[in-house]
């Protein structure tokens, strides 16, 4: 088995004529909690989405636990990954409760034409409990606050016991008070679930407090990596 939870080998991604990732090579070892830091348009979210096969790669190779990301293996690969997106394309009046939302994270594993079991329901409730929002299980998702929705989405991501957790700008729609709780929650999830975790953010203090190491990106290129403490020093030298 690969020592890497995921790898990008000379990956290039183009949107039309614009190159958004330039021959990126990067690896995240099993059990690591890694931050991807950069300005808007640095290519952080694109890099994350190539792991899920949501964005096609023009050159190079993307691997999850040694398996190349490609059409044949995609369904299996995606089931190993828990994903919390930056933006939801969801109607605020969507007819789903918080528990329904968490259950949707389990459906691919249950299989087409099969109905969720009591065990599936208990897994979803357990994930909500870990995120301390079990009391919101029957509440409509759309009426929850930004912080509550973020917890529910995190519960959705971990309900299927993934091996790799991806979070895209988790602090973008929450206030500073919740950021402290979020750091604690992500650390709890990461350590208790034997996960490898990648967090994309342009919030340097958040990543510095959360991650083992931080990868710096700019204009679709990996500039290098720094330790959590090193990130703030680096920024202090005028990168921002």
């Amino acid at each position: 088995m690969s020592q890497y939870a995921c790898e990008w080998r000379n990956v290039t991604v183009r949107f039309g004529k614009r190159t958004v990732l330039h021959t990126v090579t990067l690896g995240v070892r099993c059990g690591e909690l890694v931050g991807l830091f950069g300005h808007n348009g640095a290519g952080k979210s694109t890099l994350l989405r190539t792991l899920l096969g949501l964005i096609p790669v023009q050159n190079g190779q993307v691997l999850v636990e040694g398996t190349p990301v490609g059409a044949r293996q995609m369904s299996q690969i995606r089931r190993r990954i828990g994903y919390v997106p930056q933006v939801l394309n969801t109607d605020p009046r969507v007819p789903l409760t918080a528990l329904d939302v968490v259950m949707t994270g389990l459906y691919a594993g249950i299989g087409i034409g099969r109905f969720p079991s009591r065990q599936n329901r208990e897994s979803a409730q357990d994930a909500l409990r870990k995120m301390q929002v079990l009391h919101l299980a029957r509440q409509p998702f759309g009426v929850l606050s930004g912080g509550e929705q973020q917890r529910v989405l995190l519960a959705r991501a971990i309900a299927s016991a993934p091996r790799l957790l991806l979070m895209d700008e988790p602090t973008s729609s929450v206030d500073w008070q919740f950021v402290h709780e979020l750091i604690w929650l992500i650390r709890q999830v990461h350590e208790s679930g034997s996960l490898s975790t990648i967090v994309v953010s342009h919030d340097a203090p958040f990543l510095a407090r959360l991650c083992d190491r931080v990868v710096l990106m700019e204009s679709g290129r990996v500039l290098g990596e720094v330790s959590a403490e090193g990130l703030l020093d680096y920024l202090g030298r005028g990168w921002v």
Partner: protein
Amino acid sequence: MTWLSLWSEPFMARALLATALSAVACACVGVLVVTMRLSFIGVCISHAAFAGALIGLHFGVSPLGSSMVASLLAAGVLGPLADRGNLSPDTAIGVVFSASIALAFLLLALLPGPKAEALSWLWGNVLTVSRENLWALAGVATAVVVLMAVFFKEIQAVIFDRELAAASGIPATAVFYAVLAFSGVTIAASLSAIGGLLVFSMVVNPAATAYQLTYSLRQLFLLSALLAVLAGWIGLALSALFNLPAGAMIVLVSTAMLLVAIVFSPKRRWSTATDGGKDV
């Protein structure tokens, strides 16, 4: 013939059955169309189905079959256009919509002889539904209900967020195209009863009404089907009572139901009450 004696006539029993079958199929598809915000795609498909029926009449083939082919073709064209973003979805829908209407009017003008049959596909007439149409409606309604039950969880995931569903391993694109295809088939099957101009109201109105009243997807399907059948039968009764077009009355009743639901929607009160807490 009195209003009450009408109900014992065989054509009225067929009309009630056709209305109920069409209402259930349209309402189930409507839940998907409303929750996935595909309403304008559906309008476009319904007009393509009408153009398809006219093509059938023009070339002497089954209008039901040709309307199904046309609606599936429209779904097949609109899906990728809306999906891949070569054009904005609004522009793509506008182009296909106006092309369908233009084709329909052209075929209407080219049809030799009286236009009554062609116009009946535009306005619909639930009182003269043929046996062939009734069987088609029964088949489509059964297929829609069975598929909604079997693929309920996949549908639920796609309604929540299509990309997130795909990212978790659900065949979200297949579900999306299946929804478009079923919208096409359902609309085509309902065309002769409700008419090309009005059928889409039967798809959207009951689902939009139920959407005002519940946060549960299961209840949304059930309530939507129930309201659609109710609107259909009340509309039919009013049309028989006042000697008015059935399709128009059915749509007006379902529109009135929607307006009442919007006014008394618990969701409206809930979202107003919780707006203050959305920033956390």
